[in-house]
């Protein structure tokens, strides 16, 4: 069996994933990171985007709005502010959020409005990306 590490994904309102994995991908502050067992200690904030957990043939997708990732050689912890399993993401809702954010950007007057709209837009785009990737995978594996 391949070397594995413990992965825990939790949000304030519940635990989303707890189990062994061989690799994990997440959107850290300075770009996407891929973590394998025996990684050096690492701590970073998370950007809105998907977290992918690979264990054997299985892959789990999660969508994280923001949060913290902490890596220890044998344990990875993701403290998500809000996290959803990618299967639960609603494409229509995400598109709608993106449209709203773009609209808000057009109309935005003050700097704070623009900043808020940019955050919303980034979140919506990340959600849509997660959905699209998930859909591609499902097509490849013939599940959809």
């Amino acid at each position, binding site marked *: 069996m391949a070397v594995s590490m413990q992965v825990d994904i939790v949000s304030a*309102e519940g635990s989303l994933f707890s189990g062994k994995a061989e690799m994990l991908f997440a959107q850290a502050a*300075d770009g996407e990171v891929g973590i394998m067992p025996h990684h050096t*200690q690492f*701590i970073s904030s998370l950007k809105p985007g998907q977290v992918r957990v690979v264990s054997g043939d299985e892959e789990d997708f999660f969508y994280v709005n923001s949060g*913290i990732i*902490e890596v220890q050689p044998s*344990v990875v*912890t993701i*403290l998500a*502010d809000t996290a959803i399993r990618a299967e639960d993401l609603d494409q229509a809702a995400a598109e709608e959020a993106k449209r709203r954010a773009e609209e808000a950007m057009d109309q935005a007057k003050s700097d704070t409005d623009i900043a808020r709209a940019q955050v919303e837009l980034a979140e919506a785009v990340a959600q849509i990306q997660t959905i699209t990737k998930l859909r591609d995978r499902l097509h490849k594996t013939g599940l959809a």
Partner: protein
Amino acid sequence: MAGGSKEIRAKIASVTNTKKITKAMEMVAASKMRKAQARMEATKPYVEKVKRVISHVAGAHPEYKHPYTQERDSVKRVGLVVISSDRGLCGGLNSNLFRKILPMLKQWQEAKVEVELALVGNKAKSFFRSYGGNVVATVSDLGDTPHIEDLVGTVKVLLDKFDAGDIDEIYIASNEFVNTMAQTPTVQKMVPLEAEAEAETHWDYLYEPDAKTALDLLMRRYIESLVFGAVVENAACEQGARMMAMKNATDNAGQMINDLKLAYNKARQAAITQELSEIVAGSSAV
């Protein structure tokens, strides 16, 4: 005498209605408590995981020591987060908590330490409105399913003050859920974090984007999750206490109905006896 028994009958009817209401409230509280308990269990993994990360950080040999882990030399002002319920009819839940806080407030007053209060829930708000105190933040009407977003602002007020050096310690007062029958009021220190025994290690994290930003975020999330956990736990306590209070009220109403029924029957029998003796007296007089 007949008038007396009629009054008693009316009273029995009204107590029976009250009993029905308290019984219904007891059952509602019982079902809400189960849900609140489930939510309380759901928040535990997050708090546990944040604690695990913090203990890792404490074990590391970081280039940057976060202010939330540093004890301050002199404590001139403290912050106190008080978590209460929004609604009453839950026995002594809130008053027990306030009774626990008052001696601490007195102690601080004697030590010339100023206290700034952040209040969660309507009951704390109205209590400190009459008691007095320096209230800097309040939040209430969180409903049965509190969300962490609702609390972030209140926590931020105190943390910002701590960062600015306006307050030196932050405490949290809330009820601890022991079981459905028992809730214990507790007061704990949140900031600065109790320093853990530091084993000599020589590793440090890789930080993104940098140590200060990453650790700041972590500490804030930790404090927020502590407050959120306390609020969710308090909600479970509230339902538990309400269930017990309503159960007692129902039992008392039952007892009262029995007493009233006894009085009613006595009055009825006395009336019959009196009537009989009047008839007998009347017939013998003829």
